[in-house]
Each structure stands twice: as C-alpha cells, then as structure tokens.
C-alpha cells in the first residue's frame, strides 16, 4: 500500500524480475537473480511468476482461451495440452462459457478474470498483481478480489499492490511504502 509514486510498482517489477535493481539483491527461492542473463530471468518469470496488471493487457485479436494459452505457448507446451489446461483454469475463474469471446466482448471484471487465469495457468509460485481493481467498477472489483483471495487460500503466494485501503486491510501482511521506502510492515 502507499500513495502513487511511493515505489510500490517498482518494487513489484523488481520482485517480478522485469526490472534490475541499481543496488541490492533480489532473491527468488534463495537464489540471487540480479546478475542472471536475460534468457535465464525470462525462464524464471515463465516458470515461477504470474503477473496481473491494472490494464489487463489482454491481446485483442486473441480469444479468451488463446490469451490464457499464451504463457504455455511461449513455454513450448503442445497445443492439445495447452488448450486443456487453459480451459480448466478459465472454468475455475468462472468463465467456462466465454472461451471463444474476444476481450472486447467481455466486461471489465471478466477481462481481469481472464488475465488472472493467464497468470495462474503456468501454476506459478508467486502471483504479482499491480492495482488489479484499479480499472474496475465496484462489482467488477469484488469479482476479482474474491477470485484472488480464493487463489491465495488455495496456496499461491499473492503480492498485491493497491492504494485502496479497504482492499489492503484484507491482506494478512501489509507493507506500507512512502517515498520509495518501506514505512511499515504489519502481519495479522
């Protein structure tokens, strides 16, 4: 949590291996990552990290199913298995009847649920969500938060960036950031 410009997203990008720290170390499973080659960092992202963005970042020319298949496609998974796994995840997020819809044909909440399905289809260890409800109305936001909490209860580590206090209060551990520094780290 924290006001805009406090460094929440930057921290998230560092954790997600999208950015390299100028100083310090980012360890994933105890392994320092900042000096790894680009290829290796891409492989780590592919295997261990799922991203959820405020703007969804769905690809408009692809169907919901194809959007969810995308990380598996990049990982070289065979088409039949890819389709099966993507369909199963979409069913879990409650979109079994929307497989062939384009993003433009879905509501905001549904689009973000497709994006969440895409983030978890690789069964990552870490789910990183950057203001996932920022572009949604209340109803859509509730759909997404319920889904994320369900996933978290299912055993996946979730790091969520938000400036929505109400949403933040629901997390078991809250890190508050101000001016690029951790100001508070509260559990329970």
């Amino acid at each position, binding site marked *: 949590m924290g006001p805009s410009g406090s460094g929440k997203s930057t921290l998230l*990008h560092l954790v*997600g291996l*999208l*950015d390299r720290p100028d100083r310090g170390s980012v360890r994933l499973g105890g392994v320092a990552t900042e000096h790894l080659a*680009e*290829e290796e960092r*891409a*492989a780590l*992202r*592919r*295997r261990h990290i799922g*991203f959820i*963005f405020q*703007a969804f*970042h769905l*690809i*408009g*020319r*692809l169907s919901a199913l194809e959007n969810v298949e*995308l*990380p598996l*496609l*990049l*990982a*070289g998974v*065979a*088409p039949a298995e890819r389709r099966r796994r993507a369909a199963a995840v979409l069913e879990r997020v409650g979109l079994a009847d929307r497989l062939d819809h384009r993003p433009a044909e879905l509501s905001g909440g549904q689009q973000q649920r497709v994006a969440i399905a*895409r983030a978890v289809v690789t069964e990552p260890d870490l789910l990183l969500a950057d203001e996932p409800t920022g572009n949604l109305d209340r109803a859509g936001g509730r759909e997404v938060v319920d889904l994320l909490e369900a996933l978290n209860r299912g055993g996946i580590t979730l790091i969520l960036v938000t400036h929505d206090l109400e949403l933040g209060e629901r997390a078991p551990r809250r890190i508050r950031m101000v001016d690029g520094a951790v100001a508070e780290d509260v559990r329970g």
Partner: protein
Amino acid sequence: MRAFDAARWVARALAAERTRTALTILGFAIGVAAVALLGALGEGLRRFVLAEFTQFGSHLVAVVPGRSETFGVGALLPTTRPLRLADAATLERLPGVAAVVPVVMGNARVRAGDRARYTTVAGVGPGAREAWRLRVAAGTFLPAGDLARAPPVAVLGDTLKRELFPRRNPLGAVVRVGAWRFRVVGVLAPKGVFLGTDLDDAVYLPAAWALAIFDRPGLMEIDVLYNPASSSERVAEWVRRQLVARHGMEDFTVITQDQMLATLDRILRILQYAGAALGGISLLVGAVGVATILTIAVADRTAEVGLLRALGASRAQVGALFLGEAAALGLAGGLAGLGAVAAVQLLVRLALPELPLGLRPDFAAVALLVSGAVGLVAGVRPALAAAALDPVAALRAE
C-alpha cells in the same frame, strides 16, 4: 516456443491488420513483379536476338578484308589486298568446308518491263542457298560452276517478285540491274525481316556480276559454311593458312560465329542485368514499405511486447517474432508478385504470342527466397527495436 506456434502467431498478427498488411504486400509484390518481368523480358530479348542471328545457319565462319580484332577498320589501309573470287574458290577445297559464299552487297534499281524498284542486290554464289538457309520456291538457285564465269542470271526474293511480277510467272523473264540484263531462274520462299531489313526485298546475282555493277575491286566478305563434324576453330585456322599463303600476309580477319555470338551475348546479358537492376529499385521501395509498417507495428504493440516479456519471452524471442512478420510479408509479396507475373505472361501469350517472355521455375524459386530474405533484412531494425524495449516502460504504454 514451437515453430508452428510462432508461425501461427505471426499469421494472426498480420491478419489482425488486414488493410495495412495487404497494402504492404502489394507494394512488395510490385517490386518482385518488376524484377521478374524486366529480367524475363531481358532473357526473352536475348534469346530472340540470338535466334535471329543464327537463322542464317549456325556453322559459319566469315572472312572480311583488313586486319583487326573485330571489324574491318583495317580495310581502309592501302596495303590491304582485296578478297577476290579466286580466294573464295580456293576455300571450297579446304577440308571440313561444306559451302563458300562470296558476298558483295549494295542497292540498285531493278527493272522488269515497265516496273522498277530500288532494292538490295546480293552478289553471292551457289553456296548461299545452303549457307544462309535460303529456300527456293520456284525454279532453281544460282547455278554451280566457275564463280568468275557465272552466267547473267538472277534469283528474286519473295517481296521483289511480287512487286515486279504481280500475278505473273517471272521464270525466264529478264530484269535489268544497272546496265546489265539478267534472266530470272528462280524465286525464293519468304525469309522474313531481320533487324528491320526485309530480306525478301532483294535480288540475288552471281558475285562476279555484282562486283561489276558496283565497280568494286573485291568482295565485302566470304562466308564459309563448315560441316557440323568439324569445329569453327579448326576451319578458321585452315582458312587463315590458305589465305595467308595466297596473300603473303594476314591482311584479312577471320570471324567465327561463336565469337560474334559471344560478344552479342555479353551485351545482351548486360541489358538483362540492367533491367533486373531497374526492377531491383522497386523491390527496394517495397522493402522500405515492410520496414515502415513493422516500425509502426512495434510502436502500436509496445504494450504487447511488455506483456510477452512479463510472460517469460526473452528479448530474442520477441525480436524473432517481429522478424517472422517481416519475412512473412516478404514471402507473401514475392508470391503475389510471381502470381501477377504469371497472369501477365498468360495475357501476353494470348495477345502477342511472338513476344518472347520466359519465366523459368528455378528463377521463381530464387525470387521467392530472395523476397523472404529482403523482407527479413527490412525487418531487422524494427525487430531490434522491439527486442530492446524495456518491459516495464512497454507495459506502461497504451
């Protein structure tokens, strides 16, 4: 990422921007078609000209007066002795020689009764029929015998016959050329037009008479037809030795048809390459089109690049996908261009069957490969730009 998935990704990305893709392919196709058509036209022209030059027979060696490497500037030198009928006569006895044609050409007025016409006068010998592949339609050709004592007879070309003797049998009639009278003994079958000259608008006389008509000291050329079993070099050497023995020096030039054709072929090939180079300019413009459209695509899809990177694509993978789009545009353009060429060829074959325009399949395959390669090269810069995008900044776009 699997190759098939990458290809499908590329196809989907291009299909999503239908108009843009179609226009880019069109531009590239025009370039490919220009290269292929101009190249094919050059090739066709080359074959056409070579065929024109060999229609007189392909086993010829020519002797011209004067010493020079190619054509007779040396003919003007005072020390040059003219080629005489007797020279031609001795060549007939050389081994490997099938026929010898003494040649004296000029223009003169030919009159038959009340009709007259300025026409080509070809002073030749009986060997011209075989050496130049002339066909006699009626009567006979010039009679065999001593070249210097040939009788005053004439053989008419097809056009001249029709002009001087419309609806009349000319055999046995008399034509006047200058101050001399010749009896018509034969008429030739049509031979056609060679490089703008009507070969049928001519009268063929014995060379001895032509020398008298034009008051020339010697022959303009001696054509030697050799047996296919012999070779042009061997015959040329025999001819050279024989004439050196007679003249005491090499004051003449022996030209083999192979040399002539090789020179001609070189010139025509340069023309062909020049045509292809002109087409290459349009292909270059097409390639610039591919580069432009991909640069725009990378800018449009910056967020997509960021997403791909976040989902675990490496820089190399992102670059390769955009390169794939460039190569696909090139290949599609090449295919469309060749299709257009095939259509043009079909139309040409229907409308102008005599215009030579040959597209070879191996050339088409090479053209496709080159198209893909040119597209690929055009895509290098935008692909590198896409690969170099910082994923965090890219995700913020949109």
